[in-house]
Structure formats: structure tokens, C-alpha cells
């Protein structure tokens, strides 16, 4: 399995939870901390499980997620 | 070489529009402006320009909104019931500062009315028939050659002020045959580029066409900008014609076809020794209040004649401001005043 990671733009996140439901690896969860707009933002709870599939990012209505994957021969 | 042709008012407007570089024309059929639509149907495609018989007047004016957004000269035409349907689009055109030309060949109303000549849409045209604090320039030709001239002017004013301009004609003018000297066709490519238009954001920031802002302060600013534009137009673009007013005791105020009929009445009255003049607004918005007031200062009577129940009459009374008597003679429902019926009114009032 390749390793991946994501960066969530916390100020864009509206805490809708769709990324949490979309993640096949169950990486994401609500953080419990609110952003400036008062939304409970999503965050990586099990970062080591992320495979960089980008399902969360495809799902995110607010385009808050950037996805990275380990370079193949790195 | 300028060409002299025998044309109906409707055809003269259509041909002048083509010569003014109108690239896109959209309309829905209605009498009495069908010849305009038909002239465009015959000629626009052969020039590589757009003619669409739209599914409705609402659609036609929305297509005009699109073509104007994309920066080309564009026009629609209709008659009274169809112009009612265009009010939404006209309001949006005004709010979004989009140059466009709308022709209303007015017929009898209200409702379906009839297809005979009328001037019963003056309020709708000059006071804002759609929603919002807007105006459009309204031009009232009284002869076929003038209809052609004012069509050229309409396109120029529309571009200059980024505003919809209406040509307010009537069924009489639309159908009337007269010799017309048409202007030389202009090359649309020679027109100044519209830097604000939605033409693709290549090498510049995006252009956004809109009439909308949720913030009251911003929308107020947009409205103030519109009003500033209207002040400019009022300052620069008022047009009217005076005939025999210098020594007149009575001046007839009339526009469009009615003014032309009134001119015959004027000659008959003069032949009887009555000192009668004619004041003919050419821009119905902006209305020539000051000029008419100046006339009212040295006459006893300003007689308004219209094919309506007295719509321009309100502007005449505003202008005259009790400096003179302001009687009214109107016909409705497609009944056209004759020189003699106007003369009868003149005789009554000149006494």
C-alpha cells in the first residue's frame, strides 16, 4: 500500500462530514475544534492508514482537501 | 454611395440596423412589425450574422442580453404585448449596463387590443416598464427616413452609454412607404472594442456582467452610478424639433406619427390665420422639459395630441408648469387623428 496524506484547509471546511464517510480507510474524524466560521472541522485521526486515494477530496463540497501520495521510488 | 430606396418604416429600421453593424437579431413574430422580422430573416444569415426566431419575447430579449454581454451590437423588435414580455429583460439590460436596441411598433391595447396604430405604450417606455430605478433612452421617429436615422443613433447611444435604447414607433410608421436615404454600412470590426464584455478572460482578469449585489451599500452605489449616467444623458442627448413656434399663440405638442399629422393641421391652421406651432420631442426619454418650458413662456396654449388617453400629456404638463393652458386631444384603440380633427381642436383652443 502506498502512503498518502492530506491537508485540510480548516477555514474552508464546513464540517459536513462527507469526507469522513467517503474515506475507505477510516482515516478521518471530526476534530472537535471549531474554525472561525464555527464549524467542527474534519482532521486525520489515523494518518498512517491514509493511502492517498483522494476519495475525501473528490467528495469535499468545499474543495478544502489537498492530497499527497508518496513518490513511487522515493 | 448612400442609397435611396422606397421602404416601409419596419424595413427601414431593419436595414438601418444592419448598416449600423447589428450582428445578432432575435425576435418573436407579431403584427404590426412582421416586416422587420422578415427583413432580418432574409438578410442577416446571408451576411453571416445571427437571426433567431425565438420561442418567445422573453427568450428573445434574453438572447439580446447574451449577445450584448459578448460585446456585439444586437437588437430585438416587437409590438406592445410582446414588449410587455420583454420588460424583465430590459430591466436586466439596464441594471447590467448592456448596450442594446429594442424596437416597439406600438399597437392598440390594453391586453390583446388590436393591430392598429397607437401610442399607448409611452408610459411603459419612458417611465420604466420593468422593475427597478432605471431608464432607457426612448427615440420617437415621425417619418420613415427619421426611423432609419434614429436606428443608427440608437446603436451609437447604446454603445456610448452602455444602455438599452428603445425606438418607439407605431403601426402607422411601421407600414408607411417613403423614400429613404440609407446610411453607408459600417464594418462592425471597426467599432471600438468593448473591454468590459464577456469575451474570454485571456490575458486579463475575468469580466463579470451582472445587475446584482446582496449588500445594500453596494447596490446603492450601483444605482448611483446608473443615475449619474442618466444625468449625463439628460445633459447631452435631449432632442426635439420646433416648427413655427416663434410667433405662435398655440403650440401643438406631439411625437411620432401624430406629430406628422399635426404638421398638416398646422399648415391648415396657418392658412386660416391661426398662429400655430409644433413642438415635437424626438427623445421621449429624456424628455425635453426645459425646451418646452421655454416655448410655454411665450404661448397661451400647449395642446397635446396623442394616440393615447394622455400619456405624454403628463410630461407636457410637468414641463409647462402652468405657464400656459394645456388642453389635450387624444384618440385610442387604433383610431388615428386626422389633420382636420386636430384642426378642430386647435380652433377650439385658439379661441
Amino acid at each position: 500500500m502506498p502512503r498518502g496524506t492530506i491537508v485540510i484547509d480548516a477555514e474552508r471546511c464546513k464540517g459536513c462530514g462527507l469526507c469522513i464517510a467517503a474515506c475507505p480507510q477510516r482515516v478521518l474524524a471530526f476534530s472537535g475544534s471549531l474554525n472561525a466560521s464555527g464549524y467542527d472541522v474534519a482532521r486525520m485521526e489515523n494518518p498512517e492508514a491514509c493511502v492517498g486515494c483522494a476519495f475525501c477530496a473528490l467528495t469535499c463540497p468545499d474543495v478544502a482537501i489537498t492530497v499527497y501520495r508518496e513518490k513511487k521510488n522515493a | 454611395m448612400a442609397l435611396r430606396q422606397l421602404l416601409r418604416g419596419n424595413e427601414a429600421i431593419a436595414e438601418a440596423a444592419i448598416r449600423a453593424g447589428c450582428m445578432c437579431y432575435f425576435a418573436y413574430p407579431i403584427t404590426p412589425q412582421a416586416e422587420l422580422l422578415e427583413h432580418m430573416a432574409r438578410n442577416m444569415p446571408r451576411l453571416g450574422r445571427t437571426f433567431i426566431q425565438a420561442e418567445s419575447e422573453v427568450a428573445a430579449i434574453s438572447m439580446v442580453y447574451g449577445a450584448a454581454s459578448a460585446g456585439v451590437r444586437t437588437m430585438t423588435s416587437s409590438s406592445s404585448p410582446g414588449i410587455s414580455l420583454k420588460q424583465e429583460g430590459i430591466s436586466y439590460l439596464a441594471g447590467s449596463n448592456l448596450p442594446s436596441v429594442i424596437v416597439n411598433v406600438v399597437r392598440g391595447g390594453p391586453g390583446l387590443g388590436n393591430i392598429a396604430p397607437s401610442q399607448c405604450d409611452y408610459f411603459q417606455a419612458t417611465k420604466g416598464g420593468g422593475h427597478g430605478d432605471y431608464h432607457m433612452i426612448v427615440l420617437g421617429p415621425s417619418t420613415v427616413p427619421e426611423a432609419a436615422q434614429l436606428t443608427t443613433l440608437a446603436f451609437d447611444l447604446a454603445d456610448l452609454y452602455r444602455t438599452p435604447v428603445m425606438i418607439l414607433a407605431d403601426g402607422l410608421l411601421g407600414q408607411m412607404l417613403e423614400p429613404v436615404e440609407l446610411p453607408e454600412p459600417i464594418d462592425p470590426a471597426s467599432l471600438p472594442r468593448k473591454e468590459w464584455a464577456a469575451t474570454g478572460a485571456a490575458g486579463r482578469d475575468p469580466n463579470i456582467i451582472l445587475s446584482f449585489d446582496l449588500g445594500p451599500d453596494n447596490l446603492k452605489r450601483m444605482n448611483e452610478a446608473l443615475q449619474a449616467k442618466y444625468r449625463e444623458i439628460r445633459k447631452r442627448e435631449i432632442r426635439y424639433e420646433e416648427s413655427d413656434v416663434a410667433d405662435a399663440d398655440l403650440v401643438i405638442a406631439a411625437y411620432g406619427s401624430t406629430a406628422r399629422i399635426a404638421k398638416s393641421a398646422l399648415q391648415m391652421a396657418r392658412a386660416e390665420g391661426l398662429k400655430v406651432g409644433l413642438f415635437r420631442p424626438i427623445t421621449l426619454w429624456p424628455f425635453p422639459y426645459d425646451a418646452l418650458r421655454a416655448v410655454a413662456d411665450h404661448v397661451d396654449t400647449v395642446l397635446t395630441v396623442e394616440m393615447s388617453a394622455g400619456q405624454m400629456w403628463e410630461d407636457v404638463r410637468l414641463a409647462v408648469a402652468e405657464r400656459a393652458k394645456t388642453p389635450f386631444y387624444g384618440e385610442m384603440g387604433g383610431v388615428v387623428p386626422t389633420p382636420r380633427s386636430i384642426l378642430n381642436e386647435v380652433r377650439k383652443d385658439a379661441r
Partner: protein
Amino acid sequence: MPVDVARMTKVFERPKSLTEARYTYCPGCHHGVITRIIGQTIDELGIAERTVGIAPVGCSVFAYLWYRCDAVQVAHGRASAVATGIKRARPDLVVFSYQGDGDFASIGTAESLHAANRGENITVIFVNNQIYGMTGGEMAPTTLVHQKTTTTPDGRDPATCGYPIRFSEIIATLDAPVYVTRQALYDTRRIQDCTKAVKKAFQNQVDGKGYSLVEILSTCPTNWRMSPTQANEHVANVVTQVFPLGDLVDRG
């Protein structure tokens, strides 16, 4: 163990054709996903400099703020007619309209149908969320039978309100359209399918093929009074029963 993103490959980022502006949409609303898909399509086709988007009236009234391309905000329902005007004036431009179900299939019925019937070479994105989002959740022409809205408080009664209109099917009866499809976004597979459909609808226009319509079953968690995840399930389990997914016309 922390990961060092500098040594990794970026596999997903905000499309370049999207501005930095934050959407005015409610949490979990699919309008945002659709906007992202369009931005990504504009990027992939390299057409940002010749694209003109049309912002309708509805929750997406601010659509002119989301893209780095020219845009025109238009009257409720008239987007397809305005698109016609732009495209006829400048056939070299790529013109897309973005319209809600109220906009496209109710007040804009005539404009929508006739632009399709003329085969205008435009791309129409039709967002079917079965409700009037912006005005507070009133019945849409697409509202499901028995669905409660603020104007059908006891549920849509077909006896007085008729049935949900399948507008794409109506358009599919016409001869001119080259591509008519219904897509959804309730899971990643559907999102990927929808992305392909949107790209095809734009590509058709770029290739001069003609009218393309992508209807997208969207959510309105706010007015459906559901969580965003419940709303997704509702689309998957209920809405697609009334509005089946798939291509209706493909003359590409």
C-alpha cells in the same frame, strides 16, 4: 510518524480555474462538488481563457465568483437563452449555463427546451435537488411525490401538484441534442462518472458537436432536513428510483 509532504506527489488540489472565494453553499451541499468538477474540466481542457459561465438565480447565483473566467449573471430561468445569445455572438467562446431545477425546468421551461431543440452548441449543467433551495425550500417541479416542502407541508400531492417532471427525458425526445445524461454524486464512483460526463459535455462543445445536457442529482441537506450523509443515502436509495441515472442521448 509525521509525513513530509515536500517529498510526496500532489495527487489532488484545488483546480486552477477556481478562485479562492469560499462558497456560500450550506455544509455538504453538492453545488460545491459540481462547481469543483466544472473547474477541473475547464483546467483539463485548457479553456479558461475562452470560457463564459452563466450564473442563474438560485443558490448558485454567486457562481460568477467561483471561476477564473468571464461570467454573466442572468434572470431566473433565462440562462439557456442568454447562453444562446453569447454563443451565437461569439461561437469561438465556450459557454456553459449552470441552472437549478426551478430555473431550468420550471420558470425557464421554454428557454431550456428551445435552446436544446435548436441544438445550440452549449453545455448545460442542470442541478436537480428537487427543491427551491434559495427561497427556503419550496416545491420544485422535480419534488418527489409525498415529499414535504414549505409549500407542500403535507407532501406533494400529485392530484393537485402533478408529478416530478423528468425534464432530461423530455429533452431526450428532441432530435438536436448530442448528449443528454443524468448523473449523481452520492459516492465516489458516481462522482467520477459525473466528472467524465461533464468533461464530455464540454468536449462536445469544443468539438463543435452541439447541445449537451448534464443533469446532476444534487442534495439540499438544509431544506431536506437531513444530514449531508443522510442526504447522499436518500439520493442513492430514493431519488434515483424516480430519476434513473445514465445516458439518455449520446450522438457524440
